[in-house]
């Protein structure tokens, strides 16, 4: 299973996302922002980092990259896409997911091991988890506050599109403690915390992050979706 990992100027966690894909049993394919060719990948990860230095707004410039034109088009045809942190910001700026990410309410960058509750587990990226499963993965951001108007938030809740929610501590002021959301068909997931940093017990607080990557490999192979 080939999973593309996009590198924008300023992407930081692309290598780590590729490592996670490999550990989960997939083949990571590096995709360059300036190239609209997706090289036949079966799914795409938009990694974390500071694409374009977070200038203007996080993800606002990356969203217009040539590779994104193709990704938006293919996503409309069902291509699975996972946006992590900056990737989530790009998905929102590109209107593939509703809402927006704003400055943390306490104004500081925060890096912490964050407990999450998994809520939607029938997406291409979360089907390895059980409903209500509690996991710990690192969170690190300065602009991670998820916001949307009440009508959108009610719709996300009502339609079961919230993928994960913060437990114990809301680290950034996200509305309704939302840590990640999905599109109705479950092919596109945006997640603020970083599963790619929880894939080895040597370097992370747990290996709970692997589930995000193995989920997509399962669904691509046609298991249990």
């Amino acid at each position, binding site marked *: 299973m080939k999973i593309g990992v996009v590198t924008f100027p300023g992407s930081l966690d692309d290598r780590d996302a590729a490592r996670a894909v490999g550990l989960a049993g997939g083949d990571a394919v590096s995709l360059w922002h300036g190239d609209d060719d997706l090289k036949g990948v079966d799914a795409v990860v938009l990694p974390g980092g*500071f694409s374009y*230095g977070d200038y203007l707004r996080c993800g606002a410039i990356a969203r217009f990259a040539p590779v994104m034109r193709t990704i938006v088009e293919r996503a409309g045809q069902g291509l699975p896409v996972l946006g992590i942190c900056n990737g989530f910001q790009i998905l929102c700026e590109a209107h593939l997911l509703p809402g927006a990410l704003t400055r943390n309410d*306490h104004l*500081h*960058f925060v*890096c912490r091991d964050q407990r999450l509750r998994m809520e939607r587990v029938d997406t291409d990226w979360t089907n390895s988890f059980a409903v209500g499963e509690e996991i710990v993965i690192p969170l*690190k951001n300065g602009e991670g506050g998820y916001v949307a108007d009440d009508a959108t938030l009610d719709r996300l809740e009502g339609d079961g599109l919230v993928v994960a929610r913060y437990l114990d501590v809301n680290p950034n002021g996200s509305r309704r403690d939302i840590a990640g959301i999905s599109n109705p068909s479950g092919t596109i997931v945006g997640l603020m915390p970083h599963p790619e*940093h929880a*894939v080895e017990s040597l*370097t992370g607080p747990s290996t709970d992050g692997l589930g995000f990557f193995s989920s997509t490999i399962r669904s691509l192979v046609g298991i249990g979706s």
Partner: protein
Amino acid sequence: MRPGGSATPPLSGCLDTVDRAESTPEVAQPYAELGLKPDEYARICEILGRRPTSSELAMYSVMWSEHCSYKSSKVHLRQFGDKQPEGGWPQLLVGIGENAGVVDVGDGWAVTFKVESHNHPSYVEPYQGAATGIGGIVRDILSMGARPLAVMDPLRFGPADAPDTRRVLPGVVAGIGGYGNCLGLPNIGGEIVFDATYAGNPLVNALCIGAMRHEDIHLASAKGVGNLVVLYGARTGGDGIGGVSVLASETFDADGPAKRPSVQVGDPFMEKLLIECTLDVLHAGLVEGIQDLGGAGISCATSELASNGEGGMHVHLDRVLLRDPTLSPEEILMSESQERMCAVVTPDHIDAFMDICRMWEVEAVVIGEVTDSGRLTIDWHGDRIVDVPPRTVAHEGPVYDRPMHRPRDLDALAADDANALARPHTAEDIRATLLRMVASPNLASKSWVTSQYDRYVLGNTVLAQPEDAGMVRIDEESGLGVAVSTDCNARFVRLDPYEGAKLALAESYRNVAVTGARPLAVTNCLNFGSPEDPEVMWTFAEVVRGLADGCLELGIPVTGGNVSFYNSTADTAILPTPVVGVLGVIDDVERRTPMAWGPDGEIIYLLGDTREDFAGSEWAHVMHGHLGGVPPRADLARERLLADIAIAGSRDGMLTAAHDVADGGVAQAIVEMALRSGVGARVWAPDQVTDMATFLWSESPGRAVVVVPRSEEMRFTAMCAARGLPAHRIGAVDSGLGADTGYADQQVLQMGDVVVTLAQIREAHDATFPALFGA
């Protein structure tokens, strides 16, 4: 690439060319305002055989400044090179004199690391001062050919509750985080120390580690006549020019120059692009020599590259891409605009080089070529404005052997015995002292700071703060890793500079060893007051002597470092603060020893000897506001033994946890281990110590607390006994203590007769920083 930015050449006749300098020897030049002494100015005239042009004057004034030339410290720093074992240091691949030192860590891997200061800019503009400090040290590492892997930040501030500290500390932390996080470098450790002497002069030191294969090591030299000199990265603006503007006013007409910022502003995104672009051109084999642009910008890069190489270079300064078209040539030469590098590239590689820059959207321009003239010549639109022998600029600056004498108050300080201070004896007093100590700013939890730093990026961080050393994996296949710690108890150094320097080295060495890594090399950032103060100079000389002697005894070389003078608050010099960084290697990071003990039943040992050592201790400072007495003597043979045992214990799986004993003594070590584990323990003083306060807060060196599983206890104690290392059984991990002590369902720490819950300790320990600096 476009030709040089839209700079407007000044009216001819106003440009101070070499010809003009030759024909107008009588022109008075503002050399004093640029910081040059009359004899230094005279020497420049002698070297050139005429008066310098204003551009040449600018170059010499900055390159011969203390910061760039090390003129007051060179005579002493020589010891780092002179004091070495027969046959040299086997692990040293590149020593002092390059951008950063490089050591062999095995398996064909080399590691480069260095610590540097950015103190004064951080007082003026905390965020940008600290941010550009990180930027600068990362470029130094990059210019050796390494991929930067991690950063650390040893910081020192005035009193924690001073209003100005509230201005400076959050800005510095935000700057380090803002720059380092955006670059994608994990912050794996550092220090935060508060002391009144830093109130007007915070110390912001920044360390970076990088790794490369042996064959990828690059040096800053311009070799190969005809090779091209390329300036790439950010455009050049008026950053950091400050005093050099006084020259610009000489060559401008009535309109005058725009206000020149003296603070450099960093752009981490540009630096991230620079890193990727540079690594690509290096790996493609397109670079003959490379240099980063730091202090003194283009002047420094060109004179150093030329000086190290064939000895000659010609530069067309008007080709430099400018952000500000009103800059004069002098200002362009001296600009400290960030995120710029200089590479030497053969003509047949230049197109490929430019292609890579284009791909990363990094601007690049050829500004000159390597020559064999033995001179550095710089033209501005065809007019010669610089013609100097580069060695005289870059390496043959003035060397001073400044007057020194032993501080007159040292004897009185030594006689003011800290061991005579009143100590707590009752369980109640000891308990109260404990809670006060763990909440004191130097000992309190730093997570308010460290949670603003990304520790995870790159996915190779194995240990990070609050562990003893930061550890990163270098090779994912083999598990090869390196560990780094930075330390300095400046109070020890104040009381006895020679011993204090050795003690700083010992602490850093010990912090690396307790994680299971074998110490290999040293870097240092020597932060001192004014070298024109004979007492400061004497202290500096003694510190360097102590460090050099200590390194020889421990078998690890100083590979490079930095000197920062003129640090003081009003007329009071800062505490002499030689920050020592030690780097060690571990064959397999899986074997590392962290500081958290396990769930239950393991035995706690105190290795080493505990004596009455309160001089310069945190306890004397917090409880009595006292600084005095004779600090402990460094016993480096004991430190070597302790390190050997810790490394063997780690490698052979005999230890669950280890933590060095330093500031705040055994009490602090135990508290930190307990909080990290979340599990309580029972601890008691060893027979050799009769007084509880001594057991808890004395700061005798050469000690570590280790935790041993019962199954390994005999093997471990036998090893210690055979090697002659005292090992005192001082406790046991006990998750059930709460029930025995009236705190059912809670984790409890019992030290002698004192009982305190982990919740109470944690509350005291965690509350300090948020209360001081805002949640």
